[in-house]
């Protein structure tokens, strides 16, 4: 609860955990849930968050929340959903389709006239949003709001400095500093060649490709474990861990027995363990997710994202954001 109260001052708010906290609080503890909602609503009013962030709280706890605020928010959330569906970024999420059956009955219960009006004007609302364009506010409007709120942009982290004596190249993995895509290319080329050989049923060549991949992973591992400049991200997300997993996954396409033999070659017992668990889950039809190093590492640049989706069969992994 302290974290929730402090969060707005940090210009950041844990919406997901706040809802989880509301759900976890005892049924009789209405005050806590109201307080969490009040903090979240205040953030929304300051225009630091969209109304959509309050949707899950309303869906779950609307009976306990201030009626006027719930009535105010539901149409806004529905409009934001429509806008997101019309002006989607990657592909339509059908958010309105999902939200309408949740929120409209609440609106109807609180104010049936307003709900009826929403239904009546639905087509017109779609049209108005379409005409308004992809953004509610233009850049000047956003700047004006920021100025009125006296928002100071967050400071950029101090530039990373390589410790003296560390062999780790900057922004690279296993390559010289002026070849920032080198490691990425190596992994991608190895994956591409393995996939090509597997498609042609050239098993010996595919196995040679696995050998190549299994040589790339330890070279990355040396950088992750560099004693002078160790990777400070959890080992489960190290680029070397991901490389071992990816090439093991490709080896599993040759046969389960083959990959289990190969996994024994992974020198790090913990990465071996993680790879075995990953394979087991994959055989239960749970596809692993391979994170992009740059997305989980604010320590220093661990190299560009590897475009696994281009070089591996789609059924072998889940894309991180799960936009299927």
């Amino acid at each position, binding site marked *: 609860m302290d974290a929730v109260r402090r969060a707005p001052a940090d210009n950041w708010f844990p919406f997901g955990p706040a809802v989880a906290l509301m759900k976890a609080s005892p049924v009789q503890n209405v005050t806590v849930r109201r307080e969490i909602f009040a903090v979240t609503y205040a953030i929304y009013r300051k225009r630091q968050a969209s109304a959509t962030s309050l949707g899950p709280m309303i869906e779950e706890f609307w009976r306990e929340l201030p009626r006027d605020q719930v009535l105010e928010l539901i149409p806004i959330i529905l409009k934001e959903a429509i806008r997101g569906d019309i002006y989607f970024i990657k592909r339509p999420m059908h958010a309105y389709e999902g939200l309408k059956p949740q929120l409209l009955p609440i609106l109807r219960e609180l104010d049936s006239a307003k709900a009826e009006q929403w239904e009546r004007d639905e087509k017109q609302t779609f049209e108005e949003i379409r005409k308004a364009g992809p953004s509610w506010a233009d850049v000047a409007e956003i700047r004006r709001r920021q100025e009125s709120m006296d928002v100071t942009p967050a400071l950029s982290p101090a530039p990373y400095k390589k410790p003296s004596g560390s062999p780790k190249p900057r922004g690279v993995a296993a390559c010289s500093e002026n070849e920032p895509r080198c490691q990425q290319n190596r992994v991608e080329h190895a994956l591409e060649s393995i996939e090509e050989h597997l498609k042609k049923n050239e098993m010996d060549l595919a196995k040679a490709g696995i050998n190549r991949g299994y040589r790339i992973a330890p070279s990355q591992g040396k950088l992750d474990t560099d004693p002078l400049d160790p990777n400070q991200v959890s080992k*489960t997300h190290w680029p070397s861990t991901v490389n071992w997993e990816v090439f093991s996954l490709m080896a599993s396409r040759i046969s389960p*027995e083959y990959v289990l033999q190969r996994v024994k070659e992974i020198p790090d*017992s*913990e990465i071996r363990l993680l790879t*075995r668990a990953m394979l*087991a*889950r994959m*055989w239960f*039809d*749970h596809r692993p997710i391979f994170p992009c190093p740059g997305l989980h590492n604010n320590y220093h640049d661990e190299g560009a994202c590897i475009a696994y989706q281009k070089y591996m069969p789609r059924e072998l992994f889940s894309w991180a954001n799960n936009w299927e």
Partner: protein
Amino acid sequence: MAAAVPPGALTALSPVPQASQKNPPAAVPLDAMAWQMLVAAFEESKTASPAVHAQVALDSAKQLDQDNKKSDEAVVLREA
């Protein structure tokens, strides 16, 4: 279908679930083998670093959840 469970394996993880299977059948059914691997990995992870143990426990818990073994899932998560 029954799978050999390594000695000392967590009881919660012992029963072999009825899993769906995309891959072609192997000599040992793949789901049975996968279950044994998960059980063994969970046991081994107890001596690994906390992050690795947590990841393997999470994988095991997700699988138990998928098999609708809620109480076993809770045991694994508590232990992690």
